[in-house]
């Protein structure tokens, strides 16, 4: 306990000294900017900051990287809300309700809510994380392939809830997502599937490319047929709206807390990834809400739960990265490289003798989150103007941003063509009312589910029993069952209600 406190005191001293604090602000702004542009995001921001960090001392370097990470998550939510374009993949869940709110002229409120829930989520996540540090190793090691399997199946069961209106269409979308996810090399069976011998498809379809296409590009197509601006040009917004968003977030503090804890926990599970954290948090927000049907149409709780989890997950994802060199999310991959460059070696020491380094990173994350949230609240009003610009001006610009983002992701022009393809698919889906969320879920969770399944059988001494004889697996399996029962129960309740009338 004493060590924990000492470590954090050292960290606070480091972070709030000059010029380190200046570095923090710089990193935050860089992260914020990069987070807003799809295809850029955390990994690219960090990769660009690495050369800048040569010659910095270890503490300053850690602050630089952590602050960029903190800035990215909020930056991504701004574009998710205003333009239906998730700056980073985890911001996708913010877009589900954030963008509808923007269309209703409530963008300011959404940004305010995102800012507030990001900040509070980060703090709650931090507290939870610190509580977990003593048992971090055991928690991480407790998750083996059967748990990964159930985690992803639980995630897939979200499809049933998310498509409560039309389960068949939801299943079709999810199924297509699963099918697409199987493209490429599957290490577990050492086979390349549906890649037609190309190097491009060897790695499968990239999730950011799919998101850019299905949501951003599809939305641009849709807007071009409507010939107006994203929000009603007559709508007004002002600072009061933003504050309203902040106040509503505070009112929904239980949603924030639950989402933050979920974000941290899932962030800790190596290989789960940040996107699942926000999706599952979004789901629990929907399940626990008084008005689950309004999710996806501009319910502010959707934005709150997604963003709270989004900011908490980075703290969680830090743990497997620093203890086992297993990156908990995409941005952690680059962070690892940055660590090694500055002589920070992942291992037990970072949780014991060198805990102050970990603490420095965590403190920086929180401070930069608070910083971006403040900037967000102050500039929200100006940002919302974007939603009132006529589309014929917005579309070409965003189109360029999307295409450049797609290319910049992997320096691969084929990605741009694939974005176009997904754009058409996404537009078609909105016209015929198929759930794009379900497809995305299938796409992200398919590989994790399959890998979890195959690896579980490979390591099992008891055959299929391994899926039900482990405590964490059982809990996750039960949660899945509950998740699947909810729409059934609801249908039953509705039909009974109908009969009574």
């Amino acid at each position, binding site marked *: 306990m004493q060590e924990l406190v000492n470590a954090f005191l050292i960290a606070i001293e480091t972070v709030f000294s000059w010029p380190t604090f200046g570095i923090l602000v710089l990193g935050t702004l860089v992260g914020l900017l990069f987070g807003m542009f799809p295809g850029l995001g955390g990994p690219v921001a960090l990769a660009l900051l690495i050369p800048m960090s040569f010659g910095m001392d270890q503490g300053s370097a850690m602050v630089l990287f952590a602050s960029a990470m903190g800035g990215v998550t909020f930056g991504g939510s701004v574009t998710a809300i205003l333009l239906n374009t998730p700056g980073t993949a985890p911001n996708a869940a913010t877009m589900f309700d954030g963008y509808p709110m923007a269309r209703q002229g409530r963008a300011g409120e959404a940004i305010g809510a995102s800012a507030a829930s990001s900040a509070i989520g980060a703090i709650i996540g931090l507290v939870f994380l610190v509580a977990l540090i003593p048992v971090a190793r055991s928690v991480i090691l407790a998750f083996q392939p059967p748990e990964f399997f159930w985690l992803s199946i639980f995630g897939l069961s979200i499809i049933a809830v998310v498509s409560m209106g039309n389960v068949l269409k939801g299943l079709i979308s999810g199924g297509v997502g699963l099918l697409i996810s199987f493209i490429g090399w599957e290490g577990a069976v050492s086979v390349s599937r549906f890649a037609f011998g190309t190097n491009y498809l060897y790695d499968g379809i990239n999730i950011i490319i799919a998101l850019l296409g299905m949501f951003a590009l599809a939305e641009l197509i849709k807007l071009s047929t409507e010939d107006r601006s994203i929000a009603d040009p007559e709508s007004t917004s002002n600072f009061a709206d933003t504050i309203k968003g902040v106040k509503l977030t505070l009112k929904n503090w239980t949603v924030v807390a639950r989402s933050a804890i979920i974000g941290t926990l899932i962030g800790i599970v190596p290989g789960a990834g940040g996107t699942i954290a926000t999706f599952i948090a979004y789901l629990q927000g929907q399940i626990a809400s008084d008005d689950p049907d309004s999710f996806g149409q501009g319910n502010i709780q959707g934005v709150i739960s997604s963003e709270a989890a989004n900011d908490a997950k980075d703290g969680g994802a830090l743990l497997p990265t620093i203890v086992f060199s297993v990156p908990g999310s995409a941005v952690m*991959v680059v962070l690892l490289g940055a660590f090694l460059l500055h002589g920070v070696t992942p291992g037990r020491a970072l949780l014991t003798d060198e805990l102050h380094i970990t603490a420095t990173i965590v403190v920086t994350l929180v401070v930069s989150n608070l910083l971006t949230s403040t900037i967000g609240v102050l500039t929200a009003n100006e940002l919302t103007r974007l939603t009132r610009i006529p589309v014929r001006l917005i579309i070409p610009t965003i189109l360029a941003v999307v295409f450049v983002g797609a290319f910049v992701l992997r320096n691969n022009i084929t990605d741009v063509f694939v974005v176009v393809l997904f754009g058409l698919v996404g537009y078609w889906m909105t016209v015929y009312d198929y759930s794009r969320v379900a497809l995305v879920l299938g796409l992200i969770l398919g590989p994790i589910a399959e890998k979890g399944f195959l690896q579980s059988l490979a390591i099992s001494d008891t055959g299929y029993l391994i899926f039900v004889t482990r405590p964490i697996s059982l809990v996750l399996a039960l949660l899945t069952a509950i998740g699947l029962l909810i729409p059934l129960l609801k249908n039953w309740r509705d039909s009974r209600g109908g009969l009574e009338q």
Partner: protein
Amino acid sequence: MSGNSGINRRTVLKSGTGLAAAGVTGLAGCSSIGGNGGEYPSDDITWIVPFGAGGGYDAYSRAIGQYMPKHLPNDANINVENNPGGGSRTGTQAVWRADPDGYTLGMIDTVGNAAYQTVIEPDFDDYDITEFSYFGTAAWEPYGFWTAWDSEYETVEDLQNADQIRMASSGLGSAATNAGVVANSVMDIPSENVFGYEGTAESMTAVIRGDADIVPVNSSSARSAYEDEDLRPIIVFDNSPIEWASESQAAGELGHDGVVSVGRFERTLGAPQDTDQEIIDTLEQAWLDLVDDEEFNQWSEENSRPIRPKNAQETEETTQGAVETFQEYQDIFEEAKQD
């Protein structure tokens, strides 16, 4: 669309002009491509890393990019670019397809590619790993079998006598997996593969938490786990035991030379095939000068990235040797593919 839609002749003309203006400005921003007829290198060099940022190949490449220019005749810049994908084949292919004028170079994983084009995907014809114009090797490292600190296995004999040994790794196509598969077969270890982990760090974690018994990993990646007392080595695929873990056995000492030949990865420095020999000689000399460079060595020490240099010819020999050894082991991989 209604007559009031935003797309009319004026709009098209306006946007067309705008596009043209943007295009011209953009083109003006591009610097001239290729040399201006001076001595090599008379322009900036692009260095391709077929792996993502932050990893080993990336780290060595960036250090080379930073410290090698001053050893080149004209002090040209080296711009490092990451081009990951396809298990390093995307970036390697980018080097292969570049003009052989010395202005595109890359760091190439020769052993991994040797396995791929020989035994994993014999129809592979995007490039031939033996035909690149190599000018040196930056580092190489042997893999080895590591096990959990408290596991019951201490020696290769223990592994051989077990009922079943589970090996955790990424999958065929990863150099570590290839090394492990060959070693298991050659040393008669009753192994079962657990594939699908994303890289060595995850495979090591898998063994620590009990998914599997052994993991093929290179020594320096396992070092931190060794110091944390999470993993310890059983055998290293080299001719002598690990310096800082002398309890490890050595495959070479047990007579398994084939394992030593392919149980490793190499970080080689290459250019497209048929690059002018003069250019290759210049690059080779610059590399060998860099090896003695004080700043480069300081970087190496501070970052625990040992420099184990080879010249052009040694690199070619190692690459050719790996291809030939894998050809001998074709059956082993056929079997592994069917599992």
